[in-house]
């Protein structure tokens, strides 16, 4: 057993994959998590996990095309070496999960069955019923339990990570955390600390995420000096079930299995949906995007649904925005076999059977492409250098970030079923990198007793002063609701600079108010009130980064859509006119990329995020315009290909 130790914060797919790999390498792990790791948010993932596979390969698919779809879907904003490595590992990741006992759905012959997800033309997605995330998480949880029995893992469940422990050189030597039951605060020595704490959905009040997805852990690292990348890229999922406490996801697999999105052509048609004849239904995705139909990428589907309801006034209901997602043309047996779980959710929470009635859905905040900035080391082949200690290291030495809380892999927009993959891949790949890191270190973090004790004491003092602040005038739960409203209005589907400016002011004001929140519980035992207030306070730095990042980025890219800066369709009808317009279009596209094909990198000055921009590594797949649904797309594509061919000796592989 190694004498050095790693602290892993978060036991979702990323944290657990990393933990089990480290144990296999003989490195002991302290695993800290807000909730028992088996209850992590990853259980919510329904749809599946992507990889190129034997079936798709024979239709022309390859790992290269998986890379290509991923960066094209992400509007080229992601550094390509990590994506390339992930795409090439994907088949191996699924084989490993299969060996670990994940009950993937099977074909008649006993092979892993696949379905198609948005943003690709291939059936790459492996799935286990409608609870793929749960099944993957359980398989990893079981392996970690095995290592726990063997004595390599110590779990600290119901512990809240309060911040990294930094030494005089600014390097991380451990973590401070607090027990949610006893309220004890202590330091954990860690020669490396891995943050795997998932997404920040609660910043938006209600989202598709679980209640522990506050983003607080990432924010605490951000406030301690770690940089944060691409905050403004927040994915809004096109299909969620609007609810009072949560916006429950209706997985993209509902469309993958043939679900059709439509609205009645007559606004707010009062007839029951089944009695509206086909000719009077507007299947707007199929009509507007004949090639991809209902399976256009998420950002496009979201905007179209938003547009249909908000701009065209075709919402199914008057008081509540929604469209139909219809599965009723598929046999009940097939639906039960492939989508049983998610249809049960709809039925359970809405009281209506989606096998016989079209569902009502609307977009909801779903995923953060941005996250803690993290490094990587490319190899000569466009992929990653295996075992590099730089892989996924944040801007703070010895502090790493993986999973939804880092900023890699998904660029400006994540493709469905790629996140489970990126979480497991990065956890596994990081193991040997950390081993090399630990081997290169002198001394151990455990020797830093004074440093560790000081850090714990500092957090204890902060905690005590928070508890003493009784009689504050503000209610943390109400401030949280206000924050959610502001963020949802200004920083989701459609973004405008005036709204974003106002939102930044409002968020800052709420931040100030939150600092004088009164506690209704000042006890020292399982005090959820004080822990919530802490998490709330830590939502603001990230909320500010999201809004400021969005405000500054004057363009449209992936999930970040600013109509004032959108690229126009072509208007000319004659070939020569079209050609000239397409040339201009491409000039503008190039110009925009020179300015904005850059990651946003934020640092925190104690009150505001400061933003710089970083070039994006597009060494494998040269950027090209995303032209879904644009008039004149063919001509633009033609012109663009000619330019690419001219500019590179090597022809672009499209």
């Amino acid at each position, binding site marked *: 057993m190694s004498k050095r130790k790693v602290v892993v914060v978060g036991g979702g797919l990323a944290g657990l994959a990393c933990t089990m790999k480290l144990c296999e390498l003989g490195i002991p792990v302290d695993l800290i998590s807000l909730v028992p790791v088996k209850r992590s948010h990853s259980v919510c993932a329904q749809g599946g996990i992507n990889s190129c596979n034997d079936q798709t390969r024979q239709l022309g698919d390859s790992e290269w095309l998986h890379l290509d779809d991923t960066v094209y879907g992400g509007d080229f904003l992601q550094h390509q070496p990590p994506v390339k490595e992930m795409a090439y590992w994907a088949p191996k990741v699924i084989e490993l999960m299969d*060996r670990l006992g994940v009950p993937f759905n099977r074909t008649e012959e006993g092979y892993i069955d696949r379905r198609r997800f948005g943003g690709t033309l291939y059936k790459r997605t492996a799935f286990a*019923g409608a609870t793929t995330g749960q099944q993957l998480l359980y398989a990893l949880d079981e392996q970690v339990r095995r290592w726990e029995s063997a004595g390599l893992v110590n779990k600290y469940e119901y512990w809240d990570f309060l911040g990294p422990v930094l030494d005089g050189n600014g390097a991380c030597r451990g973590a401070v955390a607090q027990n949610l039951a006893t309220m004890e605060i202590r330091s954990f020595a860690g020669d490396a600390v891995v943050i795997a704490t998932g997404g920040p959905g609660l910043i938006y009040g209600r989202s598709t995420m*679980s209640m522990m997805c506050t983003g607080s852990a990432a924010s605490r690292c951000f406030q301690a000096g770690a940089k944060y990348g691409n905050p403004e890229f927040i994915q809004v999922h096109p299909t969620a079930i609007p609810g009072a406490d949560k916006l429950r996801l209706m997985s993209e697999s509902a469309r993958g299995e043939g679900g059709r999105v439509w609205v009645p052509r007559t606004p707010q048609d009062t007839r029951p949906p089944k009695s509206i004849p086909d000719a009077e239904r507007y299947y707007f995705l199929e009509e507007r995007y004949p090639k991809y139909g209902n399976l256009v990428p998420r950002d496009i589907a979201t905007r179209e649904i938003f547009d249909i309801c908000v701009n065209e006034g075709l919402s199914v209901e008057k008081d509540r925005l929604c469209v139909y997602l219809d599965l009723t043309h598929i046999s009940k047996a097939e639906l039960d076999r492939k989508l049983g779980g998610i249809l049960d959710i709809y039925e359970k*929470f809405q009281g209506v059977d989606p096998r016989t009635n079209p569902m009502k859905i609307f977009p909801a905040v779903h995923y953060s492409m941005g996250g803690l900035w993290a490094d990587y080391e490319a190899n000569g082949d466009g992929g990653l250098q295996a075992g590099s200690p730089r892989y996924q290291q944040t801007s703070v030495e010895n502090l790493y970030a993986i999973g939804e809380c880092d900023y890699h892999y998904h660029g400006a927009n994540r493709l469905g079923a790629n996140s489970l993959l990126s979480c497991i891949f990065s956890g*596994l790949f990081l193991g040997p990198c950390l081993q090399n890191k630990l081997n290169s270190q002198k001394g151990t973090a455990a020797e830093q007793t004074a440093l560790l004790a000081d850090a714990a004491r500092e957090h204890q003092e902060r905690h005590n002063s928070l508890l003493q602040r009784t009689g504050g005038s503000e209610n943390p*739960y109400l401030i949280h609701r206000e924050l959610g409203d502001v963020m949802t209005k200004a920083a989701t589907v459609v973004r405008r600079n005036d709204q974003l400016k106002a939102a930044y002011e409002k968020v800052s004001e709420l931040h100030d108010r939150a600092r004088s929140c009164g506690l209704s519980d000042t006890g020292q035992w399982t005090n959820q009130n004080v822990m919530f207030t802490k998490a709330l306070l830590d939502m603001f730095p990230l909320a500010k980064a999201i809004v400021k990042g969005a405000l500054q980025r004057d363009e449209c890219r992936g999930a970040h859509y600013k109509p004032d800066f959108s690229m126009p369709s072509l208007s000319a009808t004659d070939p020569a006119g079209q050609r000239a317009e397409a040339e201009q279009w491409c000039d503008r596209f190039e110009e925009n990329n020179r300015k904005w094909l850059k990651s946003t990198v934020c640092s925190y000055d104690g009150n505001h995020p400061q933003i710089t921009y970083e070039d994006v590594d597009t060494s494998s797949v040269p950027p090209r315009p995303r032209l879904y649904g644009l008039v004149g797309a063919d001509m633009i594509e033609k012109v663009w290909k000619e330019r690419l061919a001219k500019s590179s000796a090597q022809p672009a592989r499209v």
Partner: protein
Amino acid sequence: MIKDAYGHSVKSFQVRVQRQDAPGAAPYWQTFNVEYEPDMNVISVLQKIATMSRTSTGKETTPVAWDCGCLEEVCGSCTMVINGRVRQSCSALVDRLLEDNPREITLQPMSKFPVVRDLVVDRSRMFRNLQRVKAWVPVDGYADMGAGPRQSRGEQETAYPLSECMTCGCCLEACPQFLKVELERKPNESDAEYKQRCGEAYDTEFLGPQAISQAVLFNAHPTGKMMAGDRLDALAGPGGIQVCGNAQNCVAVCPKHIPLTTSIGRAGRAVTIHKIKQIFGGS
């Protein structure tokens, strides 16, 4: 809108909560008055209670502590006893509950686990029991060794429902044979020491349907099977399958509709064969 027995629309309703300040402390009841809104569930009720932190008589109080996560009945966090019945609070819709009793909803913590505070209980025993039955596939390692064993659709369809168990504990709350084990913490006992002592106490008590069903799941897996003997030993040992009185309460309350009694039947037969083999000089 929900109506009461006299046909009046319900504008607000009472929520009676069984509270407890700390482990071992005496439980007490508090009542809260909650304004009715459409589409509420017990989670949104508890959120409202946390926001107001006032009882129905206007007395200031601390927010009720409770556990929740996914809010879509898949993480298993939010189990509690609602109107006398154990279930997930996220899927307990207020409209349905008020149909039974338009006046009042009662919330209690599960009784088979030590209370941490209010509605939060300590279910670490369930995870410990998964260690007892070695609920994992014993792969050689995490290197790339190619695909897993080929499995038929039928095998997948048998395994999948068992694999949906979210460790919520409803089945254990309902099981008459599964009894509470609560150890008081000694002064100056460290976390690790206390955890160790609890673990040892759990290890001879009834496993319960959840862990038995997981043992069955892994004994059916082509690779998991390779450790079937170890799991059957655990099922045959103290607190094993023989404790089950076949009351079938467990299967009736499982929110995931896991066929627990089928699992228990399969486990029972396997243990019998295992014992016979041991007597006749098998492994």
